């Protein structure tokens, strides 16, 4: 395959030798990128490689310190997001940027509503236009419904509809698939392909390499803010791509150790929370990693929350090492040796404005106390110890957690809970939104924990991760466990069949 610029059209949007610094941090150094119409272009790199900064430069949020943004070959300066939008650039961010209180129609047309006489908004026309967009996208969302409560997949559809509504020529998608299920990804890709075929230039970011290979034609790789390469994907292997991103060969992504399972550590019997999950029973033994698979909304996170005592259960029982846990009491769960690493690390796992040291120290508040007072020295050494064990990358341990990249934040959450020396560890989407390098490290860590005799329950929507790491796979569908599949029999087909409620083959 030749480089498109040799034969095809000129790039719609390009960056030439762009640099951007925030204080002492050089987020982008001499990065170039060319986006062509009718092509899906991948942007690859580990967390902290500068992908987000690059996107915000395209979106007009950041202005480059050096270098140029070229629109149709002409140097351009975007003074704000509105400029970029007017130039036909639509950006779909990782964190959805909808207004929860406003209707879908208003979200799509905010700032550009169709007008009647005297500059009044034409609400009817806005509604009708949105309905038309939904029809074109083949979805049945009601334009008048508020954005609050929409699933991530539907929020993205709204964002895409917004892009459609101003005839975007460039669509930038920052990890759109991170929180989607298989069928939702398929729907999204259908929409992206259609847009591409109609001449849009798409910049696609994903940590799932198979998705990059599925939908993209070329890839630009960044590492530590610097440009690595920009080349066609044809002929490349996943290993090639990972090598460019990481700068070294990556040890196996799923380093699962074979461990002889020991005594039952966690036993859940007939657990029911009305309207959420029903009759859930399973056991996790010491040394075992049990994968909990299912579609988003199947009730997996809810079971984990109930087991840990965050939510109450209506019937059933939970035992750790043969001792029954009290309903709705996280402190007794913790005392019994249970740890839960939650799905949403920003909202539930970390205090973003507190230091790394203190975040890790939070779970040890009872053990690092001397005569009723905090022993700061003990807290620091305990935190340092775990931060080093997990190879968290930070400048100073007193820095706030919000300064870390996503992968490193996840390591801090893990450190916080591992510091309690748990017998049973529940991890909910442990590698969502983190890069391959850190992902492999997290997997190695989980495997090592199991080998040390910890019972691990791993909730994940990443099927390869489940298949690669779990000794047994439990599958939930609509609040019930529909299958328990041993490692040898677990395949994408068997797990998906159970997750979608079809009878297992």
């Amino acid at each position: 395959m030749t480089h498109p610029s040799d034969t095809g059209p000129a790039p719609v949007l390009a960056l030439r030798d762009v640099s951007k610094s925030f204080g002492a941090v050089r987020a982008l150094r001499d990065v170039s990128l060319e986006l062509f119409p009718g092509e899906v272009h991948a942007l690859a790199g580990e967390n902290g490689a500068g992908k987000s900064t690059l996107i915000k430069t395209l979106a007009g949020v950041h202005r480059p310190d050096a270098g140029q943004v070229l629109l149709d070959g002409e140097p351009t300066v975007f003074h704000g997001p509105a400029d970029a939008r007017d130039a036909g650039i639509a950006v779909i961010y990782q964190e959805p940027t909808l207004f929860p209180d406003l209707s879908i129609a208003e979200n799509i047309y905010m700032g550009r509503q169709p007008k009647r006489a005297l500059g009044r908004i034409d609400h009817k026309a806005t509604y009708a236009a949105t309905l038309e967009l939904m029809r074109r996208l083949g979805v049945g969302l009601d334009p008048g419904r508020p954005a609050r409560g929409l699933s991530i997949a539907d929020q993205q559809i709204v964002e895409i509809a917004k892009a459609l509504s101003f005839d975007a020529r460039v669509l930038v998608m920052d990890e759109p698939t991170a929180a989607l299920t298989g069928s939702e990804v398929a729907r999204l890709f259908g929409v992206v392909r259609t847009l591409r075929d109609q001449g849009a230039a798409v910049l696609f970011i994903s940590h799932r390499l198979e998705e990059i290979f599925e939908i993209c034609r070329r890839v630009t790789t960044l590492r530590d803010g610097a440009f690595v390469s920009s080349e066609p994907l044809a002929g490349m292997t996943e290993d090639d791509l990972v090598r460019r991103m990481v700068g070294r060969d990556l040890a196996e992504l799923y380093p699962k150790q074979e461990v002889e399972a020991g005594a039952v550590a966690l036993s859940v019997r007939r657990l029911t929370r009305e309207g959420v999950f029903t009759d859930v029973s399973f056991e996790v033994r010491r040394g075992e990693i049990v994968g909990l698979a299912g579609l988003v909304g199947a009730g997996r996170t809810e079971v984990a929350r109930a087991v840990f005592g965050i939510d109450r259960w209506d019937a059933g029982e939970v035992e750790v090492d043969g001792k029954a846990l009290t309903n709705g009491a996280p402190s007794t769960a913790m005392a019994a040796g249970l740890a839960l690493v939650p799905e949403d690390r920003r909202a539930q796992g970390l205090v973003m404005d507190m230091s790394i040291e203190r975040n890790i120290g939070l779970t040890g508040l009872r053990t690092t106390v001397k005569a009723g007072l905090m022993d700061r020295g003990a807290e620091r050494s305990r935190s340092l110890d775990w931060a080093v064990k997990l190879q968290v990358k930070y400048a100073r341990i007193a820095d706030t957690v919000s300064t870390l990249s996503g992968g490193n934040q996840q390591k801090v959450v893990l450190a916080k809970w591992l510091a309690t020396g748990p017998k049973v560890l529940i991890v909910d989407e442990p590698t969502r939104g983190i890069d391959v390098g850190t992902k492999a490290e997290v997997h190695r860590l989980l495997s090592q924990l199991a080998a040390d005799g910890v019972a691990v329950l791993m909730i994940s929507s990443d099927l390869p991760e489940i298949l690669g790491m779990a000794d047994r796979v439990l599958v939930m569908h609509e609040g019930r466990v529909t299958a328990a599949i041993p490692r040898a029999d677990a395949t994408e087909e068997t797990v998906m069949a159970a997750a979608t409620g079809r009878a297992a083959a």
Partner: protein
Amino acid sequence: MTVTATDPTPVSEAPKSSGTRLVDRVLRMRELAILAVFLVMIVITQLGNSEFLSEQGIKDLLLNATILVIVATGQSLVVMTRNVDLSVGSTLGISAFATGTYLQGGGNPLVAVLLAVLTGVGFGLLNGLLVSLGQVPALVVTLGTLYIIRGIDSIWVGSRQITAADLPGGFVGFGSGGVSAVPWLALIALAVLVATAYYLEHFGGGRELYALGSDPEAARLAGIPVRKRILAVYTFCGALAGLAGALYLARFGNVDSGTGNGYELTVVSAVVVGGVVFTGGSGSVYGAALGALLLTSVNSVLPALGVSSVWVLAINGVLLILAIAVDRIVALRVARTLEKLKKRSARRG
């Protein structure tokens, strides 16, 4: 770019417009609920005291509510953007005195009102600049300007006082006059209210205020001029506080350095009782106006029923907490219903 054929697997085939109707119903319900409480209170009082709804009685109810409705209208716009303006009481006081001083010297009443509004605009601009440029929490900034404006007022006014006798008769007459039971002042408040509500509903700038309060970061990314809007909202709120100052003078004819002291808390109560949520992005000025009407009516209802007016504050407090409790319960219910809708549609998909 036209998309016609895409993957026909709608994951969320939501039942048509059930979500919309739900939310509309809830919002309207919120305003209807205050109206219902208000009407029940009025009916009970009328049954207990047949003099209550005389022409003068109705006029008093409306007159009492007028000034609060105007200030609450401005305040609710500020609250919608996740901010607050605590300086409205001070602004009202200083504008009232400025108007009085001007009229005392034989000024034109129309110019006097304009002067009051401009005084308010000035302090509103100050607040807006501090909040939008300073990136300091509005609560702190406007607490500061509350004291600053009150301080300037005290230094300027000293122990002086303006009474009705110092003012042109027409001005004071206007303050208490009207068409039968409807005072002129109430008509002004109504005009302000309806115009503001219309702007919020039908103009881009109005909708952007909701967007801004709903998610400030998303608003920035959507290209909404966030600082400009916040500046405008504070200026508008200040202008209405100034206007309220002039109307206060017309109604009571009596102004000193303490005028409007502590009024900001009444205003904020009215706004919250009226369903404008402090976390921004929702509520309506009609709700805020109804909240103002409800709170001021308690003042008239208690004496009419022979209850000591010392109960007024306590009752206002109870109404405030009730309102917040209701909001919380409604929010939880809506969340649960939306969740159910989602589940149902997911199952169908």
